[in-house]
C-alpha cells in the first residue's frame, strides 16, 4: 500500500490536493481536499444586493461570468425584478460563449497533457501527421509543411534546454498511448487553441466590456445599450461582428476540437470503463428560450439516479443541502447536520495540521469544501450530467444526435459515457451544441431591434425603496463545470445572508456524515496507477471534471451572528 499525495494538482483553477491509497497498481481509496479559503460570502453581508454580482464574480476568473449570472438571478427573484427579452438574449450569448471557450481551454491547455506526450511528438513523421489530420476534418492547417514547421518549433524549444511550463512532467510515462503523429497534431492544436480562445472571447468584450470579469451585468437586466441608430450601442455593426465571431468559433469546435477529442479517445478506450464515480447526475437546466416565468430551457434540467437513463427526475432546489462532517467548519445544530442553503451557516474552524504539513488526517475534517447533497445523495454535475440528461430526455435533439455519433464512431455503447472518457467527450459535444445555438440568440437581438424593442433593464425595480422589506431568492445556472446556485436573504435593501452551492463543491467535496464519498473521490477508486511517484492517471480522472477550486470554497456565517461592517477608509 502506497500513500500518494498530489499537491498542488496543477492545470486547474485554484488549490486542490488529492491523497490516495494505491495498492496493486490501482487506487483503493481517495480523498479530495481544497486548500484555499477567502470568505467572499461573508464579505458580501451588509452590502447593496445590486453590487453582489461583482463581488461574487471574483469567486472565479476562469468561469468569469457564472457567479455574476447566478447572483443577479438570485437578487432578481428576491426583489421581483423581470429582465426584458434583450437581457435574456445577451445573457444567453454571454453564457454560451463562456461555456464554449472554457471547454476548449480546458481540453487543450488544462487536460490534453494528461493524454498527449509533447516530447514524443518530436519523433513524428509530419507527412503521416498531415494524413491523420486530413482524415479527421477539412481544417485548412493540416499540410505536411505546417506540421513540419510545428515540429521544428518544438524541437528548437526542447533543444534549448529551458522547458519552462513543460519541465518536470511525465513524458515517456507508460500510460501515454498516442502515436507520435497524434501527439504532434495535438501540440499544434494546443498552440492554435491558445490563439483561438483570445479571438473568440471578443464576444465577451463586445457584450461585457472586457474579459475576464465582464462588467455589463445589472440586477434586472444588462447595461449594454441596444439601438441600431446609435454608435454607442449594440447596432448592426456589432451584430455582424458577433455573427462573424460565432462562425469562427463554430469552425474551430466542429473541425478541430470535437474531431481531436474523438481521435484521441480512440486510443484510450480503456478509459471508457474507468472513473465512473457516484453514478448520480444533476442539471438545473439553462438558456431560457422565452420570457415567461417558467421558460423552456435549451439545456434541460433533470436528475439521474444510479446511471438509469430511462428515468429523468425533476429537480427541486429545496432538496439541496450541505454537510460539514469532514469540512473545516462548524454547525450550531451539530457536526452531522444537513442544511438547505436558505438556512445555511458556515463558521470556518480549521482543525487540520499546522502548515507546513505532510499529510492530512482524512479520518477527521480535511477540506475547505463542504459536501452538497441532493435528497441526501451525492450528485455529479457538469457537461457529462447535462449531456446524459439531454441524451435520456432526447432534447435538444442535436445533443442526442452528437452523442450517438460519438458512440458509433468509437464503437462503444452508452455505458461508456459513465467514465473519465465520457466526461471528456460530453464536454466537446456540449461545446458543439452550444456554439451552434449562438447564432439564434444573435438573430433574436437583431429581431428585437427590428421591432424597436431597445429595453435592457427593469428600471421599475432599480430603486431599493421598491423592494419588499424582507425577501429571499435563489438563482440557478448551468456553469461550464455544472450546476451553480446562489441563495440570498435581503433585509431593508442590504444582504443579510448569501450562500453559493457551486459545481466544484458538488464534484470535489469530501465525504458526508454517512461516509459517502464525493464524485472526485468515488471516481478515483479503481483508477490504475502504473507509477505511484508519477500519478498521471490520477490527474486524468481528476482533470476530466475540470476542477475549479476557488469556486468551490465559500462561507456564510450563522445568520444570527451580528457582523459589524467595517469600512476601510
Amino acid at each position, binding site marked *: 500500500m502506497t500513500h500518494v499525495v498530489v499537491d*498542488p494538482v496543477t492545470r486547474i483553477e485554484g488549490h486542490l490536493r488529492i491523497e490516495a491509497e494505491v495498492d496493486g497498481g490501482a487506487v483503493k481509496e481517495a480523498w479530495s481536499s481544497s486548500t484555499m479559503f477567502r470568505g467572499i460570502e461573508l*464579505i458580501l453581508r451588509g452590502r447593496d444586493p445590486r453590487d453582489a454580482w461583482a463581488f461574487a464574480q471574483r469567486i472565479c476568473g476562469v468561469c*468569469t461570468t457564472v457567479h455574476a449570472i447566478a447572483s443577479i438571478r438570485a437578487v432578481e427573484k428576491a426583489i421581483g425584478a423581470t429582465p426584458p427579452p434583450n437581457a435574456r438574449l445577451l445573457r444567453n450569448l454571454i453564457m454560451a460563449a463562456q461555456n464554449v471557450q472554457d471547454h476548449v481551454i480546458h481540453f487543450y491547455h488544462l487536460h490534453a497533457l494528461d493524454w498527449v506526450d509533447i516530447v514524443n511528438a518530436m519523433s513524428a513523421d509530419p507527412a503521416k501527421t498531415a494524413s491523420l489530420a486530413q482524415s479527421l476534418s477539412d481544417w485548412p492547417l493540416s499540410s505536411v509543411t505546417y506540421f513540419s514547421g510545428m515540429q521544428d*518549433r518544438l524541437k528548437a524549444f526542447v533543444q534549448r534546454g529551458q522547458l519552462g*511550463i513543460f519541465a518536470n512532467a511525465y513524458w515517456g510515462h507508460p500510460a501515454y498511448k498516442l502515436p507520435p503523429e497524434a501527439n504532434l497534431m495535438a501540440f499544434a492544436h494546443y498552440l492554435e487553441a491558445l490563439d483561438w480562445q483570445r479571438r473568440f472571447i471578443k464576444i465577451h468584450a463586445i457584450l461585457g466590456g472586457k474579459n*475576464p*470579469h465582464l*462588467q455589463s451585468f445589472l440586477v434586472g437586466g444588462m447595461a449594454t445599450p441596444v439601438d441600431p441608430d446609435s454608435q454607442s450601442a449594440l447596432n448592426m455593426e456589432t451584430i455582424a461582428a458577433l455573427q462573424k465571431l460565432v462562425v469562427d468559433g463554430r469552425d474551430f469546435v466542429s473541425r478541430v476540437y470535437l474531431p481531436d477529442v474523438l481521435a484521441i479517445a480512440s486510443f484510450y478506450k480503456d478509459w471508457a470503463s474507468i472513473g465512473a464515480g457516484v453514478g448520480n447526475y444533476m442539471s438545473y437546466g439553462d438558456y431560457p428560450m422565452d420570457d415567461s416565468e417558467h421558460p423552456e430551457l435549451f439545456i434541460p434540467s433533470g436528475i439521474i439516479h444510479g446511471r438509469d437513463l430511462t428515468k429523468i427526475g425533476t429537480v427541486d432546489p429545496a432538496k439541496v443541502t450541505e454537510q460539514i462532517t469532514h469540512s473545516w467548519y462548524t454547525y450550531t445544530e451539530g457536526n452531522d447536520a444537513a442544511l438547505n442553503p436558505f438556512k445555511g451557516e458556515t463558521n470556518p474552524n480549521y482543525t487540520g495540521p499546522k*502548515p507546513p504539513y505532510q499529510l492530512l488526517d482524512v479520518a477527521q475534517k480535511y477540506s475547505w469544501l463542504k459536501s452538497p447533497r441532493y435528497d441526501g445523495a451525492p450528485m455529479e454535475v457538469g457537461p457529462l450530467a447535462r449531456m446524459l440528461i439531454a441524451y435520456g430526455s432526447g432534447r435538444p435533439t442535436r445533443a442526442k444526435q452528437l452523442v450517438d455519433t460519438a458512440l458509433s464512431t468509437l464503437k462503444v455503447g452508452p455505458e461508456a459515457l459513465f467514465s473519465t472518457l465520457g466526461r471528456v467527450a460530453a464536454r466537446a459535444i456540449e461545446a458543439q451544441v452550444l456554439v451552434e445555438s449562438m447564432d439564434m440568440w444573435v438573430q433574436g437581438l437583431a429581431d428585437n431591434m427590428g421591432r424597436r424593442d431597445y429595453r435592457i433593464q427593469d428600471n421599475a425595480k432599480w430603486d431599493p425603496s421598491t423592494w419588499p422589506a424582507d425577501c429571499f431568492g435563489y438563482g440557478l445556472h448551468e456553469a461550464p463545470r455544472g450546476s451553480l446556485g446562489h441563495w440570498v436573504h435581503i433585509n431593508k435593501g442590504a444582504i443579510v445572508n448569501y450562500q453559493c452551492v457551486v459545481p466544484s463543491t458538488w464534484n470535489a467535496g469530501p465525504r458526508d456524515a454517512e461516509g459517502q464519498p464525493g464524485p472526485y473521490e468515488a471516481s478515483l477508486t479503481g483508477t490504475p496507477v502504473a507509477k505511484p511517484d508519477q500519478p498521471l492517471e490520477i490527474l486524468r480522472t481528476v482533470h476530466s471534471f475540470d476542477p475549479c477550486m476557488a469556486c468551490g470554497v465559500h462561507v456564510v456565517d450563522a445568520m444570527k451572528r451580528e457582523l459589524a461592517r467595517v469600512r476601510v477608509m
Partner: protein
Amino acid sequence: MNGLNLREELEQRGISRRDFLGFCASMATIMGLPGATSAIAAAVENETRPILVWLEFQDCAGNTESFLRASHPTVADLVLDTISLNYHETLMAAAGSQAVSALDETVKNNKGKYIALVEGSVPTGADGAYCTIGGRSALDIVREVCGGAAATIAVGTCAAFGGIPAAAPNPTGALSVADAAPGLQNLINMSACPANAENITALIVYYLTLKRWPPLDQYRRPLFAYGASIHDGCERRAHFDTGQYVEAWGDEGHRHGYCLYKMGCKGPATSQNCPTVKWNEGTNWPIGCGHPCIGCAEPNFWDTMTPFYGRLPNVAGFDVGGWVDTVGLSLTGLAAAGVVAHGVIQAVRHRHETDKDQAESKK
C-alpha cells in the same frame, strides 16, 4: 541555450521583421515611449530568456486568464515564449511533488536572477491554513520565493493591495504582497481586477528594453499604465463637461453614450489606461459597454468605491456634495461647472491619498 535570439526565433516561426516592429511600436505606445520602437526591437532581440515564476495564492486565476488574452496575436504569444516560465500552476504540465521541485530548483539555482509574479492575496489567519500549496502556507512561500527574486510583480488588485479577500471584514487576514513580505527589492504593483494583459506584457518589455524598472506612482504602479485618470481619457468626457448624463439604464442618453457619472462611475477617482488601451485587443472597455467604472485599479476599492451605483461624491472618502445635480439643473455655464466639478474631485482625491499616505507613515 541554442543561441537563437528572439528575432531569429520569430523568423523561424514565420513572423516578419515588419510584424515584429509593429509589435514593438505598440509596446512603445502602451509604455508612453513614442520613438522608442527601434530601441525596444534591439533590446528584445538581444535578450536571452529571463526566468519567471508565477505564484497563485488567494486568487481567482483572473489575472492568469487575462495574461492568456495578451493581444497582438502570435507575437505577444512568442514574447511569452522567449521567457522561461518555470512555474505556473494553471499552465504547467508537472503536478504535485514534480511541480514543487520545479519551483524549488528555480529558486535555489537562480537566486537574485528570476522575476516573481504573484496573483492573489496572502492570508495570515489560522496559522496560514487559509491557503496552502504542497502543505506549505502561502505566507511561507511568498517570503521565500519573492525574497530571492530580482523583482516581484504583484499582478492584479488582490496581490497589489489585498483586493477582495481583504475587503471588510477581511475574514482570513489577507494581505498584499507588499505587506506579507516586507522589504522586497523592486516590487511593482500591476493592479486592476484583473490586470490588463497589455500592461503586464508592456512592463516585461520595458524591463528588457531599458534594463530598469519604470517610475512608479505612490502605490508602486508604473506611470505608463496608471499615470492618468480614467475620467481624463474617457471618450464620454465631453458629455460630462456639457452636463449630459445617463439617468436610467437604456434611456436615450444611455443609448447615445452619455456620461455615466450619475449611475455611479468611479472613473474620476481611478487611474488606469483603460480608455486608451482598452481590453481584448482594443475591442471594448466597461464604459464603452454602458457600465460605470468600478475603480478596480485602486487600493481598497471594494470598500471605498462601493456601493458601485452610488455617485462618487456620496462614496466614503469622496464627500463632495451634490454638485452634479446643480450641473444637471443649470443650463448656463455647464462646461465651466463641469470643469470646476472635475477639479474638486481631483483635489478631494488628492487629499484622500495624502491622508492615506500619512496614515500609512504612522504605522
